[in-house]
């Protein structure tokens, strides 16, 4: 196990290194000059050249990259070109909000998705199943922007039950979590349904029934623990999906997370911030997958860590 862990950690570090390189090269190739953005439209050519020089943008790509990497390894993500603040501070100020939203969206999608999946599987091919599957289809296809605005309109404007966007209390968290978790709930319900159907047809379920165990006991103790395995593996991959969803959901609800920060940085070619947010998201995704892989054998001993 420890050998496996070390190997996976080294792999993860290499992946992250690769991501820094690819992102850096892509940003380098974008035909937009950050110095020009900073200098503004009244600047003379000399001013722009001077800014390029100060930021080291005239150096060759590899010099710039290794300088960035060297600083990064010392925990220095640089300063935002436009806000002039430390990138690490900007991200640190926003990361808790994004993590909170992410965790609460995972809880939401699991509760929604698993419940729907279980009910649909048990009512297979009956009207309840069809209705729930249509619902899951809609939740997978509907754009998050539309769902967010719709929920706001109904629950905040019409009923006045919840605040219209913002951050701070539990009430603020409800609609963004549902919006962000909605997509995953659709996937999970479909996955849970087919997984449940598979397990329900297994021999050990028939044996359990023959032993005279109650239906509830069979489902909660025998079927669900087996059916849930593929779903657990999904959560790790899900974090990647969340990272893209967060940009939209945070902007609809005014949620002060890193998605909002990333969006603005991209608009303004603020390279240090784009790099910083990319690194943080990539680390979250890599860690999520790593944890999912490490947890799987604990739940299902058949999966061996080699």
């Amino acid at each position: 196990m420890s050998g496996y862990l070390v190997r996976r950690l080294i792999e993860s570090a290499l992946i992250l290194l690769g991501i820094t390189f690819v992102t850096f090269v892509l940003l380098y190739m974008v035909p937009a000059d950050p110095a020009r953005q900073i200098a503004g439209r009244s600047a003379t050519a000399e001013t722009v050249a001077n800014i390029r020089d100060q930021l080291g943008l005239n150096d060759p790509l590899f010099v710039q990259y290794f300088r960035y990497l060297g600083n990064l390894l010392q925990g220095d993500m640089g300063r935002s070109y436009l806000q002039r603040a430390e990138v690490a501070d900007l991200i640190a100020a926003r990361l808790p909000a994004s993590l909170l939203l992410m965790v609460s969206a995972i809880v939401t999608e699991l509760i929604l998705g698993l419940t729907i999946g279980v009910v649909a599987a048990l009512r297979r091919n009956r009207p309840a199943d069809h209705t729930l599957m249509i619902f899951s289809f809609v939740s997978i296809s509907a754009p998050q922007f539309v769902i967010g605005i719709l929920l706001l309109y109904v629950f905040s404007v019409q009923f006045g039950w919840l605040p219209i966007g913002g951050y701070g209390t539990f009430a603020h968290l409800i609609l963004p979590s549902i919006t962000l978790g909605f997509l995953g709930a659709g996937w999970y319900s479909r996955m849970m349904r087919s997984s449940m159907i598979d397990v329900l047809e297994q021999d050990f379920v028939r044996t359990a029934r023959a032993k005279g165990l109650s239906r509830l006991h069979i489902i909660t103790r025998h079927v669900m623990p087996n059916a849930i395995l593929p779903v657990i593996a999904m959560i790790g991959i899900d974090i990647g999906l969340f990272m893209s969803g967060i940009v939209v959901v945070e902007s609809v609800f005014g949620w002060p997370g890193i998605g909002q920060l990333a969006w603005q940085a991209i608009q303004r070619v603020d390279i240090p911030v784009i790099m910083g947010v990319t690194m943080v998201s990539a680390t979250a995704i890599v860690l999520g997958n790593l944890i999912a892989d490490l947890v799987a054998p604990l739940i299902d001993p058949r999966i061996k860590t080699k």
Partner: protein
Amino acid sequence: MKRNTFLAGVAGLALAAGGAFAQVNEDAPQGGEMVVTYQDDVATLDPAIGYDWQNWSMIKSLFDGLMGYEPGTTTLRNELAASHEISDDGMVHTFVLKDGIKFHNGREIIAEDVKYSLERVTDPTTRSPGAGFFGMIDGFDTWNAGEGDGLSGVEVIDDKTVQITLSRPDATFTHVMALNFASIVPREAVEASGEDFGREPVGSGAFRLAEWTPGQQVVFERFEDYHRAGVPKLDKVTFDIGLDPTVALLRLQNGDADVPGDGIPPAQFLQVMNNPEQADNVVEGGQLHTGYITLNTQMAPFDNVNVRKAMNMAINKDRIVQMINGRAVPANQPLPPSMPGYADDYEGYPFDPEAARAMLAEAGFPDGFTTELFVMNVDPNPRIAQAIQQDLSEIGVKVEIRSLAQSNVIAAGGEADQAPMIWSGGMAWIADFPDPSNFYGPILGCAGAVSGGWNWSWYCNKELDARAAEADAMADPALADEREEAWRSIYVDIMDDAPWVPVFNEQRFTLVSDRMAGDDSLFVDPVHIPVNYDYIYSVEAE
């Protein structure tokens, strides 16, 4: 020396076009608060660095400079200066500070602060986007190149008096001194905060920063020691950050916000205007803005003036204005109507596809040609590009649309051989200060036709450049009318060369809650966008 002549000068010229003074209600009650919403987080509140339309007005409320504007107008007035004298040759400006004016940290403002602030903004290590505006101050070139030990043209005479010597007479200097970049900042606060001064601003404006939670909220509170008695009217202004404009509108309708800072979202515009109750709360005003198509004069076939003229006659501007729900007026020249120097009697090129086609044929393109139109990829700009594409197809010109992120369009425009045509929407010129020269240099003058410049037509007419320099040298306030006339003829002559197709001038529509009051001009203030935070008052304070 002429005594305190600023009002008769460039300002008087602005007054002619800007209309009378706003009816600022000096007796309006103080108290109450206002909530303004924004989608984007505030980038910085450092006056030397902030240069987007969101922080521009916020910085105006936190900081003051020597000069400012009468609320709701384009008329210059003394702000921290008690008096301002200009030498006969227009080269030396002497400012005397008001008595007892203070920074938010309680320290009195002295002349040394003026020198420090101007040197800071022009110091190359500050990397200020506004440094270039101060190019007329003597010693700018060496100091901004990183040589010498300060701006030699700025001299402290005594604690109250500062004398600024120019390297050339320049009629726009007083406007430049009213820009945010010329705000007075306390050295000790800047040095204590370093790069973080934009997060911990200390100025002498009507409001002080009370609270800033990144991505969520910025709160301003009244500065009790403000140098104008009875100002600001409100106790507190709260900026709620991170709200999509559609959500911001819901908040306003629900009574949770007073002004949507990003304006009325285009998709909801008609819905708001068709609702009598809401339409009542919308204030409409002009804007120092022109939306235009640049025709790259160095790329074939736009190097042919007749082709450019044909373009000018082929675009149906009325239809484009209609497409954006009438939120603009059609344009026929570079300057917007509310700018001094606008030629009222200039008729421009008529919309006449027949004549355009004939002119193209005459220019050697009887079958038209194929070209590219660059456009920023945010609504409504791609739709406007399609309308342009359709209009041009009528005269046989086949247009391929390149819809890109803003920074990519700007980068393409800054290269001589990249973008034959650019629709300026979303990046269009909004004047930094209300003076006709501000529409020339960077976007139509030879100085802007360089790699990385903003003259996307790559238009360079040396004769007009000389006339522009001559007009700006008319620093004597007595020549104000003559100067305005000189600029008017420059812009009319530019249209003879047709480097642009001027399309429209955007109008501003500010939606305000019932809780806010003040003269309409304060809600469409030409230098404060979206509103003039200092003079608006709350009806609940009465």
